[in-house]
């Protein structure tokens, strides 16, 4: 059994695909989660910040005189004597200030005082009022800051080009230190210079009402509040997002891990299903194909494959393979029959060849007692049997009859027709008729029963051995070649009648030729002049005469050999297409015998 080369397994290939899929899904999930949570944080923060900013605005605008107060705080920041982050008890400094102001102006409502009323107060009392409300407001803002977990909550005054911030108020957690140092909560009137990003943020907030900057773990929010004396008041907030982001990242990772586990689980299920429903039956089919290859036994694999019948393409494949094996089996048995048949035909053809050969005179020299002539002939059929034939026999002691003939077509039909023609010709000739009479009678006999419309060309000559007188007739056959002593071989352009079998009632005519001692006569069929080379060129009678004249003194055996060699040299590799038949007789005359 041939060892099969492992060409990789489907499971492995699919598993690799799944692994790549899991990797891609994992990465996509992780980055999408990150991106989404980032956007969500930003949206939430912005919403939350705007609510806080609204709350701050409400706290401020509760005071009818808030604009007057803003202006006062801004212009008197350095003079203000403020008690920051105070607990409002009865002893507190602000409570004292309230009592003092109420004594001086019993009609003044501290919470609802209007700007016009405040303008009427003496300078000292205006300052008292501004200090009281500032303390109240800062306390309120502190509460908001603590409630909302904002890192910084402040209100600043700025103006073109937004490079400074004047701190109006800044909320603080309990215990926070007020001061102008880094990480301290700035007091009223502290001015800081800011960088470009803060400038842009404030300008954007001024133009678009609010603005959120995302600076990694921090987010700054500015909301435009109001304008005083050409200055812009902004509410600002800062969130520290470090913790939030860390928890978001952790969440993203968890989600990603879940997604990957999910994918791996699905992949494993898929692989298992593929193995169960595809690979396992496929392997069974494959094993049976190999079994069939080695045993050529379709019954065995039909039995095996009948068990592999899932209701899908694999089941179809299994069925197809079974059918294929059965067809191959029946095809093989058919081939065996055909081969046996061909073998039988070959044997028959071989016998036919032998019969045909034995029909032609093939013992040379044929008449050892007759010294008047030498004769030699060959027939070389293109197939096993041929339609060409030659014949020669003595009619009586002084008369030699020679026949050269060519039946139309080739193979078995031609061979059968040739046998009939040969027998009719020789029987007629042996009755002592002249060649023309033999041909005429033979033609009539053949035409009487020739439904296949076959025909045969015949040259027949009867040589009177004592005198050398040749009487001949030609029924559509090639011109004979004659060589008289001292002359070259040349075509004898004799009179032609129609081929035998062509038409009933044809009368052929005899002609005579006197042979000298030494005269040679060469007869052939069209297989010689029509021998064809690979480029479809014909050998032709010119080349044939040339070959003959190259050895003018050759005896009949050599003559035939020379012509054959010349034809072979011309044709080379091309297949012999037509029967090749030649006969040569050399007349010696009686005195030599």
């Amino acid at each position: 059994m041939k060892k099969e080369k492992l060409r990789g397994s489907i499971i492995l290939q699919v598993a690799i695909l799944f692994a790549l899929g899991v990797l891609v899904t994992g990465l996509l999930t992780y980055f999408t989660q990150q991106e989404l949570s980032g956007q969500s944080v930003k949206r939430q923060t912005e919403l939350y910040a705007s609510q806080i900013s609204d709350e701050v605005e409400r706290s401020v605008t509760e005071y009818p005189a808030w604009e007057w107060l803003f202006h006062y705080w801004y212009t008197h920041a350095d003079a203000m004597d403020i008690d920051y982050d105070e607990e409002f008890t009865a002893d507190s400094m602000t409570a004292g200030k309230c009592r003092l102001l109420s004594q001086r102006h019993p009609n003044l409502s501290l919470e609802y005082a209007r700007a016009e009323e405040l303008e009427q107060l003496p300078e000292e009392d205006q300052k008292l009022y501004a200090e009281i409300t500032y303390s109240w407001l800062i306390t309120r803002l502190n509460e908001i800051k603590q409630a909302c977990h904002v890192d910084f909550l402040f209100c600043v005054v700025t103006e073109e080009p937004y490079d400074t911030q004047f701190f109006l108020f800044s909320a603080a957690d309990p215990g926070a230190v007020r001061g102008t140092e880094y990480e301290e909560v700035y007091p009223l009137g502290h001015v800081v210079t800011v960088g470009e990003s803060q400038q842009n943020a404030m300008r954007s907030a001024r133009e678009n009402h609010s603005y959120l900057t995302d600076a990694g773990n921090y987010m700054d929010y500015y909301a435009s509040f109001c304008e005083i004396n050409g200055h812009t008041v902004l509410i600002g907030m800062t969130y520290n997002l470090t913790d939030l982001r860390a928890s978001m990242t952790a969440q993203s990772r968890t989600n990603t891990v879940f997604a990957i586990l999910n994918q791996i689980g699905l992949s494993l299920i898929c692989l298992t299903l593929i193995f169960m429903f595809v690979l396992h039956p496929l392997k069974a089919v494959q094993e049976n194909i190999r079994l069939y290859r080695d045993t050529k036994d379709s019954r065995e694999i039909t039995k095996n494959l009948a068990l592999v019948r899932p209701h899908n393409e694999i089941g179809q494949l299994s069925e197809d393979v079974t059918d294929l094996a059965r067809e191959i089996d029946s095809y093989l048995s058919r081939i065996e029959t055909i081969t046996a048949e061909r073998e039988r035909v070959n044997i028959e053809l071989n016998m036919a060849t032998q019969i045909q050969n034995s029909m032609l005179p093939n013992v040379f020299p044929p008449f050892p007692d007759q010294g008047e002539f030498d004769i030699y002939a060959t027939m070389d059929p293109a197939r096993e049997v041929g339609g060409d034939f030659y014949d020669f026999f003595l009619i009586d002691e002084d008369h030699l009859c020679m026949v050269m003939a060519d039946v139309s077509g080739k193979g078995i039909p031609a061979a059968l027709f040739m046998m009939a023609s040969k027998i009719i010709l020789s029987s007629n000739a042996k009755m002592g008729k002249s060649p023309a009479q033999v041909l005429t009678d033979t033609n009539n006999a053949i035409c009487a029963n020739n439904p296949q419309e076959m025909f045969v060309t015949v040259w027949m000559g009867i040589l009177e051995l004592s005198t050398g007188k040749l009487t001949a007739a030609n029924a559509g056959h090639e011109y004979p070649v004659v060589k008289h002593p001292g002359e070259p071989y040349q075509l004898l352009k004799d009179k032609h009648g129609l081929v035998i079998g062509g038409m009933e009632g044809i009368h052929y005519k005899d002609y005579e030729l006197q042979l000298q001692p030494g005269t040679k006569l060469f007869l052939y069929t069209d297989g010689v002049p029509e021998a064809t080379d690979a480029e479809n060129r014909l050998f032709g009678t010119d080349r044939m005469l040339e070959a003959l004249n190259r050895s003018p003194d050759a005896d009949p055996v050599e003559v035939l050999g020379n012509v054959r060699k010349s034809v072979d040299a011309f044709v080379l590799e091309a297949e012999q297409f037509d029967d090749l038949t030649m006969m040569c007789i050399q007349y010696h005359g009686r005195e030599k015998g």
Partner: protein
Amino acid sequence: MLNITKAIENDNAVFSLEGRLDTITAPQLEEAIKSAVSDLSRLTLDFEKLEYISSAGLRVLLMAQKRMGQQGEMKVVHVSDTIQEIFEVTGFSDILTIE
């Protein structure tokens, strides 16, 4: 290789032959003539481009000549010298109308 170009007009047909008319291709011409011959009174075979004719081809000509001889006429035109020689050698020049 044999190409037969057929031009049939009513009972008058011209078959132009191109190539070689031998054992392999003769059945082609035989089939062409047999399928057309019953309706014809004149059949012209144009041999202008025919390179070679073998005895199998001659047999088809003989068949055609016999059939057409009974119902009309057949002629062979534009016969090359090579083929004319074959016709003469085989005696076909005596029974065919060659122009």
